[in-house]
């Protein structure tokens, strides 16, 4: 792919380059190849280069409108998410805010709710005719009409922000916690207030993580289908993904080509944003973990302590407890048509769900495939990120760009790409196996881990790695013993950022799953759409509970080193 990459490989064919080379090879095979092959095919009709697909797709004003909608919504959500997440991450990570640990967990909790379940919860709360919250507000404030209507651009952005801002929060807070506090102290002593310091020193120092989180939010929102379908469609808001899915659902080869052609625009935009943010940062240095340790100091909030705690609690309540409560109530309710009251509650939904053996199987399938995907992706991400931020090889950004390509592509297009490339045409037949699910999750979510880890890695002073090499450690040992523990929180976060969405992934899984590999996402969807929305809620609560409990246990066992 790049001459100087290979030449440096040849001159230093040592462990480091070997490992990086293998990782990039895997990335090329499993991520880049299917995507690029699909794009290539969208450029060909019956074996010859034919741009009519692109002419048609991009000649259609509707697609442009949805393109503009997508960009507008994604950018807005990205900005709002970062604007919310940075202060929250700071409050939770660097100050003496009461209840920090609790908030820290609470803010990532919304990441554990599948967005399609969460979005439905919000439509239950805020639909204009019978939304629980609307009705309550009308009742309490004696209003003449519902104050909120979830179906609209505002509602769309609201839902997106709540379910995608954890990308930013997780990425930023992990980096903040490891920052050398004397950098902030130097600003205080220069006469700057804590807030000014936050704005002028902490914020710029956190740029790599802020950009990383922002890019993740942008990619996630731009390529999401669930929330636009649930919240946007009734409001007649079309975005690229709904257009793409419309093409795919035609069920023809032409439909696939058109969908791919349209998806290319998303890939380009995401890579452009990635490139732009990298350019912006390359000119500066952001080392915040240095070889001279200073004492971890917390900013004291003083009189602001309790007001801020109240504000944060309010946000937590609205953003997390309301939708969670709505899901929980749904799981406990006898009949959705009747109002919430004591005699309309039952635990039979729970009992039947827990007894259902099929649930356990699918849970296990999802656990294994998501776990594998997250682990492989995290390992690859470490090497790709290292290549990106700690080496000077030209072309080092290409793997990062490729992983972004996957992240920005709507899942359904990835699923098709995988069917087409891994059904044996190229000698590798993964179709209908669990492997294809693992590959699919990796393609889609690898970028989460790469961005998060790269951002943290860029903040570690290289002398720390050098000291390990100098102690006789080889590169892998140095990575294992020094670099990885130092950015440990981000590695865990990266793993989690891949694991969680893979765990309840729907769009891809529903097309790729085989008779033995039904996943929890597929099951949830079945329940939600046909069997019983209540069962779906039960399952969502169970997932949440398992993840939260697993998290608490891991944190306890590892003394806080592992966990989110």
């Amino acid at each position: 792919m790049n001459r100087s990459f290979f030449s440096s490989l040849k001159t230093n064919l040592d462990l480091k380059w070997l490992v990086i080379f293998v990782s990039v090879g895997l990335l090329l095979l499993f991520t880049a190849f299917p995507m690029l092959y699909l794009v290539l095919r969208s450029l060909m009709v019956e074996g010859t280069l034919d741009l009519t697909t692109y002419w048609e797709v991009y000649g259609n004003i509707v697609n442009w409108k949805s393109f503009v909608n997508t960009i507008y919504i994604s950018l807005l959500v990205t900005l709002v998410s970062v604007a919310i997440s940075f202060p929250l991450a700071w409050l939770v990570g660097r100050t003496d805010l009461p209840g920090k640990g609790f908030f820290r967990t609470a803010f990532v909790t919304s990441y554990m709710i599948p967005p399609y379940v969460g979005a439905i919860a919000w439509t239950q709360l805020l639909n204009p005719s019978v939304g629980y919250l609307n009705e309550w507000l009308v009742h309490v404030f004696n209003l003449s009409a519902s104050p909120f209507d979830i179906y609209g651009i505002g509602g769309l952005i609201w839902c997106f922000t709540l379910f995608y801002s954890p990308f930013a929060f997780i990425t930023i807070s992990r980096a903040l916690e490891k920052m050398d506090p004397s950098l902030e102290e130097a600003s205080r002593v220069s006469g700057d207030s804590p807030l000014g310091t936050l704005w002028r020193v902490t914020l710029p120092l956190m740029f790599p993580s802020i950009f990383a989180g922002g890019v993740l939010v942008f990619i996630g929102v731009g390529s999401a289908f669930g929330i636009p379908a649930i919240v946007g469609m009734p409001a007649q808001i079309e975005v690229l993904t709904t257009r793409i899915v419309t093409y795919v659902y035609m069920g023809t080869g032409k439909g696939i080509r058109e969908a791919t052609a349209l998806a290319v625009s998303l890939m380009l935009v995401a890579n452009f944003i990635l490139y732009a943010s990298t350019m912006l940062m390359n000119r500066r240095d952001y080392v915040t973990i240095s070889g001279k340790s200073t004492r971890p100091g917390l900013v004291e909030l003083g009189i602001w302590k309790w007001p801020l705690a109240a504000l944060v609690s309010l946000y937590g309540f609205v953003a997390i407890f309301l939708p969670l409560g709505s899901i929980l109530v749904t799981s406990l309710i006898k009949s959705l048509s009747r109002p919430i009251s004591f005699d309309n509650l039952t635990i039979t939904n729970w009992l039947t769900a827990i007894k259902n053996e099929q649930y356990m199987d699918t849970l296990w399938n999802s656990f294994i495939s998501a776990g594998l995907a997250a682990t492989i992706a995290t390992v690859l991400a470490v090497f790709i990120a290292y290549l990106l931020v700690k080496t000077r090889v030209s072309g080092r950004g290409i793997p990062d760009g490729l992983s972004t390509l996957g992240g920005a592509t709507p899942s359904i297009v990835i699923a098709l790409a995988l069917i087409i490339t891994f059904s044996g045409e190229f000698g590798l037949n993964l179709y209908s196996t669990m492997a294809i699910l693992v590959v699919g999750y990796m393609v889609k979510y690898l970028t989460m881990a790469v961005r998060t880890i790269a951002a943290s890695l860029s903040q570690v002073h290289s002398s720390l790695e050098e000291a390990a090499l100098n102690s006789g450690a080889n590169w892998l040992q140095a990575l294992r013993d020094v670099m990885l523990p130092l950015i440990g929180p981000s590695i865990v976060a990266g793993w989690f950022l891949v694991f969680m969405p893979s765990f309840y992934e729907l769009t891809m899984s529903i097309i790729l799953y085989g008779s033995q590999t039904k996943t929890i996402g597929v099951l949830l969807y079945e329940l939600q759409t046909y069997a019983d929305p209540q069962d779906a809620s039960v399952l969502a609560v169970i997932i949440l509970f398992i993840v939260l409990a697993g998290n608490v246990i891991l944190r306890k066992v590892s003394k806080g080193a592992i966990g989110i």
Partner: protein
Amino acid sequence: GCGGGKPAETPKSKGPQGTVMIYTSIYPDIIELIKPEMKKQFPDLDVQWFQAGTEKVMAKIAGEIEAKKVQADLIMVADPSYYLTLKDQNLLLKYDSPNRKDIVANKDTEGYWTGVRISNMIIAYNTAKVSEADAPKSFKDLLEPKWNGKIAMPSPLLSGTAYVAAGVLSDKYGWEYFEQLRQNGMKVEEGNSALQNKLVRGEYHAVMILEENILKIGAKGEPVKVVYPADGTIIIPSPIAILNSSKNQEAAKAVLDWFLTKQGQEVIVKGWMHSVRDDVNPPQGAPALKTFAENAAKPDWAKLAKDNETVKETFRSKVLDK
């Protein structure tokens, strides 16, 4: 590769052997009902299922076609016009099942596909919000101003059955009908299930939806009721077909045959759909098909197959464009 029939080691039974893969949009709980019946009927046959919504099955098959590796032996999805497309592409196996003679519903004259179940697009309303007298009686009634903002339908762009409804109604009333619905505040949702849940909760008062969804939740005691529109229920006889790439065609044929038997159809009816046979009772709580079949709309399947893109695009521009 599931299509390959492996010879069984103990050739004591003479039924079909090997494996057979069925791609279907039939709901999972019905599949669960079918499975034991099949096992009884074909003890040596490994029947595998892939279940997803019609559109998703179609997308999966489209991908498999691109990869030149279709895995399904049989398909059973909702949209009849899709079978015309497949037939055009030469992907279906011609099979004139002996049981076809009992089938009253739509079937391909040449035998490439055969109706296997009947779903109906109807109107449903929430009885807690709307009295029986007030309920809409026809699709046309949904244009009354009292429904403003309280009605909805699934999106023809994303749901096959909704697509049929859009095609039929636009043929019948012209696109003005949908324009007026839009002006009457009709919402468009992703699919039937989203509508079903919102209808139950009373977010919508009346919706265009599949009969089977409503029968099912109605049986659970939720306050919903079906109206068979006076201006024509949209009857969708969903077919079954064998793909000509099937490597176990004998078994596939046997399975297809079974679905068309009375026994097979009784299972279908348990899934709240109507049978394609005359001698099977309607689903619980529903009238017999013939009571509303006379004035039912007669979709032009060939036109629906051909005009797929135009219909969807027109619907989009008339109803979904902001």
